[in-house]
Every structure is written in structure tokens, then in C-alpha cells.
């Protein structure tokens, strides 16, 4: 289709937003809350003309993509994607992901997106100046990772508790080389830099442990949006499968990770579903999963969510039994106190 120009949608204008919402509803899609940029193509130049196609993005994830049946096969997809890639470059983002239904993945493969993983419900593709192989090779080089067999843990550490420390110590005791991936996505109460620093300091006495940022391919809004959106049902199942598979297929293979440790999850449904998925997926790739019983204090499992609850209720005295010194010290810094105040006045689960 010649001369088609994508129009930017002002998402803050309820009328414009509703129009896109209504259009997407016709495809069983909805405009996700985290979308920050949306474009549409109209059937003609006037603002009144009806929408024939739309696409959005949330940071570097392209989503909410739809074209009406009559206009498929006219190259509209490439116009939309090119426009979004232009926008990303202008924002200094040189790499992007697309979530699509597996049946539509071929559309994006034809536009040079590369398939990372697909299951029955969802396919994840990427495009840009690097890919998952390059990202992992860079990680190997930057953190000086050798070829030996490794054991891995993935933790959000929001904040770092004695439970996390115990889990890492267990792994370090029984294995030669341990990698701790701290979730890099900054959607938790404690910012990534703080979480990373507390873990690094907290395990500095363990010489065979390396702490790494998890990057974009473990529990990020690309691989596992449910972790941050707290979704349930089929989508949750698809996302945990996706994240587990990417970890097994790429991380374990390229970094020679042969074992993964997780804590038993008594509270959180999403984390429990994630553990279940790991249990199923990892053995397929020859990776062993160890589920470790949580460290307890006075018969109650130590968890970061419990720590946040205590802070929220203002029961700060109990914290010294649940948190290592590094975290306790941090809570007394200006930034720490600010986070405590923020938590007291919030109701988010993160």
C-alpha cells in the first residue's frame, strides 16, 4: 500500500485511547496498561477515517498489534514495525522484543525478527543490534565466566533476606561455582542497584559465588510479564514455561549451568507456578533442579514479602531476625528510610 502514514495516538486523550481499545477488542486484544507509545493507520487521510491497523510498544516490547482482515498482505505490518523501530532508535533503544501468538510469528520472522522461543500460547521474538547469543557471550566475557560446570540461582531480593543468604550458602557449600542472577527489571520497591549491591556485599565471604545482573532474558517484562503484572490462568502458565525454557535452552547451554536452586514457595502463587514450570522444563535439557526448604524463624518461613509486610506494619524490631546486617544497615540510610516510608503508604505486592 503506497503513501500510508502511521499516526501517533495521544494515549492521554480518553477519546483517542477508547478508539484504539475498541479496535483491539475486535481481535480479542486489549491495550496493556504499560503501553507508552501507540500508532494507528487509518483508511484515508482524515482524522475521522476508521482505523485499519495499530501497534504499540511498552519500552522495548512491541505489542497490541492488529490489522483488519481486508488489508492484510499489503505490507502494512512492515510500515508499522519500521515506524516503531524508528521511534525506539530516537529514544536510544536499539533492541526490541515482540510477543505474538505462535500462529502469527511468521509475519515477524519475515521482518527479520528472530524467534527466541515459542510454546502453545505465546512466541517471543527479538530484533536489533544484538541478540540472546551475543548478550550471553558478552556476559561470559564481562564477568569472566569459565567453561566449568555451574549452579545458578535467580533472585529478585526485594530486599535481600537471611532466606536468600541461606539458599546461596547451601548452593555454595555443595557446588564448585555458583552464579546468582539478580532480577534487573526495575519494577520492585527496592531499586535494582540497591538489590544488586546488598546481595554482592552479603555474599562477599563466599569465594565461589558470582553475582550477576539477570539482563533482559530472565524474569523481565519481555520473558515473564506476569511476574510484574500478577496474572493468573493460561497466560501465567505460558509465561512461566517461556521463561524456564529460555533459561534452560540458552543460559544453561551457553554458560554450562547444570543445576539450579530455588526456594520452596509457600506464599506466592506466581512464584510457585514458576517453580512448577522449572521442575518440568529443566530436566528436558539435562539440568537438575533443587528445591530447598526455606529457612525459618520461629516456625515461619523467611521471605521478602513477609519482610515487606513487617515494614509496612511498622514492626521494625522483628526484622533483625529476618535480615542480614547489610540490609539492616541499608534500611537506616536516607534512601532506605525513603523506601520504608514509601512501602508504608503503598499497597502494591512488589
Amino acid at each position, binding site marked *: 500500500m503506497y503513501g500510508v502514514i502511521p499516526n501517533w495516538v495521544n494515549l492521554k486523550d480518553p477519546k483517542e485511547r477508547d478508539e484504539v481499545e475498541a479496535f483491539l477488542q475486535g481481535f480479542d486484544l486489549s491495550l496493556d496498561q504499560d503501553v507508552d507509545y501507540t500508532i494507528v493507520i487509518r483508511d484515508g487521510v482524515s482524522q475521522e477515517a476508521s482505523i485499519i491497523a495499530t501497534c504499540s510498544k511498552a519500552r522495548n516490547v512491541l505489542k497490541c498489534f492488529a490489522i483488519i482482515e481486508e488489508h492484510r498482505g499489503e*505490507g502494512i505490518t512492515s*510500515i508499522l514495525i519500521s515506524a516503531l523501530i524508528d521511534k525506539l532508535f530516537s529514544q536510544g533503544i536499539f533492541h526490541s522484543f515482540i510477543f505474538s501468538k505462535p500462529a502469527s510469528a511468521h509475519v515477524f520472522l519475515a521482518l*527479520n525478527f528472530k524467534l527466541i522461543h515459542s510454546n502453545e500460547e505465546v512466541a517471543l521474538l527479538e530484533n536489533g543490534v544484538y541478540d540472546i547469543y551475543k548478550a550471553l557471550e558478552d556476559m561470559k566475557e564481562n564477568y569472566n565466566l569459565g567453561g566449568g560446570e555451574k549452579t545458578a540461582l535467580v533472585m529478585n531480593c526485594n530486599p535481600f533476606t537471611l532466606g536468600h543468604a541461606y539458599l546461596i550458602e547451601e548452593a555454595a557449600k555443595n557446588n564448585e561455582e555458583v552464579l546468582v542472577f539478580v532480577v534487573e527489571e526495575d519494577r520492585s520497591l527496592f531499586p535494582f542497584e540497591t538489590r544488586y549491591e546488598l546481595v554482592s556485599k552479603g555474599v562477599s565471604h563466599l569465594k565461589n559465588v558470582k553475582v550477576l545482573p539477570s539482563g533482559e532474558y530472565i524474569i523481565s517484562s519481555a520473558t515473564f510479564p506476569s511476574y510484574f503484572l500478577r496474572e493468573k490462568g493460561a497466560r501465567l502458565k505460558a509465561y512461566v514455561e517461556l521463561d524456564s525454557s529460555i533459561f534452560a535452552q540458552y543460559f544453561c547451554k551457553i554458560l554450562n549451568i547444570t543445576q539450579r536452586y530455588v526456594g520452596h514457595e509457600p506464599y506466592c502463587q506466581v512464584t510457585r507456578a514458576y517453580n512448577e514450570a522449572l521442575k518440568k522444563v529443566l530436566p528436558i535439557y539435562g539440568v537438575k533442579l533443587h528445591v530447598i526448604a526455606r529457612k525459618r524463624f520461629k516456625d515461619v518461613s523467611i521471605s521478602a514479602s513477609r519482610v515487606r509486610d513487617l515494614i509496612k506494619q511498622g514492626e521494625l524490631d522483628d526484622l533483625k531476625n529476618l535480615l542480614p546486617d547489610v540490609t539492616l544497615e541499608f534500611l537506616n540510610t536516607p534512601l532506605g528510610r525513603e523506601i520504608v516510608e514509601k512501602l508504608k503508604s503503598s499497597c502494591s505486592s512488589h
Partner: protein
Amino acid sequence: MFLIIVEKSNEVIYIKITKIAKAGTLESNDILIMVMPNDSGNIELELESIVMQQFGDVIEQVILHKVKEMGIEGITIKAQDKGALDYTIGARVETAIKRAI
């Protein structure tokens, strides 16, 4: 997809790019060029094309010719071709590089 690495030569004075930049689109008869600096000093080209079998070599020549003509070194180029003609390819490469200097 294939990868070409042209080793750095010592005789001429070369210009380096400093940023990541792009030019072009993924539409039919166009080519999307992404350029980024690399530390090796070489010219690295990663080319994908829908007409790789017929014109892969020619596209490669056109891109490399343009890069050398502009005197650029230490550049990684990702090219995703949708059947662009030679002068389109040349123009897209030149624009991407000028945006990256």
C-alpha cells in the same frame, strides 16, 4: 545470513563512528541498515536478504564499497534487505553512517 569481516588497513587515515544509528525501513524494495562502532577497527557486515542467493554478493559489494569510500573503520553493520536496488542501498548506508558520526 552471513558475516564478513574486513581487516583494518594501516595505510590510509580512517574515520570512526561514535554512535549507533539506522536508516531505511523493512518495507519492500528498501533495506534497513543499522550501524554501530566496534573496537576491533574492522568493518563487520551481517547481511540478511530475501534475494541472498541471487544478489547476496552484489549487495555486500555495494555496502562495503560505500563504507570504504567514506573512509570509515571500526564499524559493525547489520543489513536487513527487502530487495533494494543498488543506489537505495548506497544511500541508506551513507545516511546511517552520517547519523552515526
